[in-house]
């Protein structure tokens, strides 16, 4: 394993069984997250963003399973671990921040109780010490008068505060990988900005890697070091933020960029991608994007494109792109 890689996903295939039939939801996904780096996973709803996170956390629902591939976290392959070992790694080495801060805290227990629980579990401290540390962590995530907050219940906190509490909870275990599944989607824009800044600061502080799931390209531009674009369970493009925003190669990525309204333009217009996202039950031959792609060539309908590296670190899977470009 290369130095500095926290997470390495290699050729991951996962499927869901619906009424006894298997449908592949992730096909040959590979990417990695280095220390002190934020990797944004971008794509439409249903493209496999969240499933990827659940694979990493090993929290797939009962009907989902990983078929092949490996997920290497800090040098250990998660797919080869049994349940007991996973429980030990979960939270300790990787922490997850959820989309909906309103429901991700137990409504009947105080903030303090829930924070202490994480601290006592992962740091092995007693209740008194855990309380002190909880105050510290709440301060770290920018919550004013933390002592009184500890005694409050989730319903007494706003969405932004709850998200901060959740971040504090995840951080308190000092994980090397932070998974954030659309942590800002449910928050309003000013709070979004605050939470993103907070995550950026904490990343530098802790020397952890962040895997950030979102479909908000504004957020991506703000926080990402590298971007992975998924479409229908396949990785279509990967590169640094610079590469993807300045020089998108795949027609889907180009479509995504065009779909963001340009406020500077005289006419407030944007170009959505035509067609709708395929259902997982649909069997599309060749490139999965071909029904919606405007630049299709004959090959697109016959075989799936290979992933090629167009410049260092910039990977694209499209028939139109060849190495010589």
């Amino acid at each position: 394993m290369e130095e500095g890689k926290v997470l390495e996903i290699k050729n991951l295939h996962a499927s869901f069984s619906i009424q006894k039939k298997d449908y592949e939801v992730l096909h040959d996904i590979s990417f990695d997250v280095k220390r002190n780096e934020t990797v944004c996973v971008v794509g439409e709803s249903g493209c496999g963003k969240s499933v990827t996170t659940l694979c990493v956390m090993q929290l797939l629902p009962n009907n989902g399973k990983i078929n092949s591939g490996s997920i290497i976290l800090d040098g250990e392959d998660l797919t080869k671990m049994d349940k007991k070992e996973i429980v030990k790694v979960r939270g300790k080495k990787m922490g997850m921040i959820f989309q909906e801060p309103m429901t991700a805290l137990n409504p009947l227990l105080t903030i303090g109780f829930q924070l202490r629980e994480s601290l006592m579990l992962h740091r092995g401290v007693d209740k008194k010490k855990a309380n002190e540390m909880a105050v510290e962590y709440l301060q770290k995530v920018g919550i004013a008068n933390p002592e009184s907050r500890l005694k409050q219940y989730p319903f007494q906190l706003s969405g932004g505060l709850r998200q901060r509490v959740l971040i504090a909870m995840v951080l308190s275990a000092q994980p090397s990988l932070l998974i954030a599944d659309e942590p800002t989607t449910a928050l309003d824009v000013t709070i979004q900005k605050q939470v993103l800044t907070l995550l950026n600061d904490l990343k530098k502080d802790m020397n952890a890697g962040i895997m950030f799931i979102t479909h908000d390209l504004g957020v991506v531009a703000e926080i990402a070091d590298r971007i992975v674009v998924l479409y229908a369970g396949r990785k279509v493009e990967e590169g640094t933020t610079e590469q993807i925003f300045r020089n998108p190669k795949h027609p889907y990525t180009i479509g995504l960029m065009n779909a963001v309204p340009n406020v500077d333009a005289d006419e407030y217009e944007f170009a959505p991608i035509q067609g709708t996202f395929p259902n997982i039950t649909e069997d599309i031959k060749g490139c999965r994007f071909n029904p919606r792609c405007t630049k299709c060539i004959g090959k697109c309908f016959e075989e799936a494109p290979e992933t090629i590296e167009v410049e260092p670190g910039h990977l694209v899977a499209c028939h139109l792109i060849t190495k010589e470009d």
Partner: protein
Amino acid sequence: MKRENQIAVAFRKLLKNKLATFCFILLILELILVIGAPLFTKFDPLAQDIIHHSAPGFWAKSSPKYMEGHWLGTDELGRDVWARLLYGGRVSLSVGFISTFFGIIIGTFFGVLAGFYKKLDMLISRFMDILFTFPGVLLALLIVAMLGVDTKNAAIAISIWSIPSFARMIRGRVLQIKEEEYIMAIRSIGAKDKTIILKHVLINALPTIIVIATMRIASSIMSIATLSYLGLGVPTPTPEWGSMISTGKQMIFDAPWLIIIPGIAVCITVICFNILGDKLRDILDPSLKD
């Protein structure tokens, strides 16, 4: 903001409802009467006076027994009805509470396991279904027949009787709670199943448990009365509301109050517990509403 105990909040809300408050006071009164039975009657519930049997109480002022202080009259063996009602209440209520208590512990145990672990669900749920297929009384009869007629055995039978309905309702609630995002979140910070169940699932199922327990006390009291009525609950001569009705039925035309009085006692208790349970449900767990 002041931190408040959830139970205290629920209780205060309950007292805002006039009907619920009335039932609550009635039940407390009943408990005081029953627990302090010797203070409220000078008669021994077992003392017979065969010559003055089936004497009417206050509704026939000329009755000689009424003059002596038997204000609810005497039964077919000349025992004081009021004393038997109070001492009998001890048995009825304690069997009701105790069997509900054990029923809920065992039922919750199975319900949580079935709801939380999909693999165990099949086994436990089918077993509960089998228990369900027996009419409750038949099941209780079976258990009493096996163990023998005794108050303790009746309580055991009623506990077992109430297990399947507890287990099923709690399983349903746990299935719901299990899908909540905070359970996923707590799992993602590395909590073990034991922690999740004890600290997070149970506490969220608690309102449901309280509500169905309240309702269940009522039916447990009915059950012990039923069993005693059938002669399989509390052995004679121990007074009990159901056995009082059972023995009183021989005198149904001569002394109807011998069934009416304990019948009213059972009715009031059961209705009060049911109304209380109903209102508690509205406050604690609106999701249970049909």
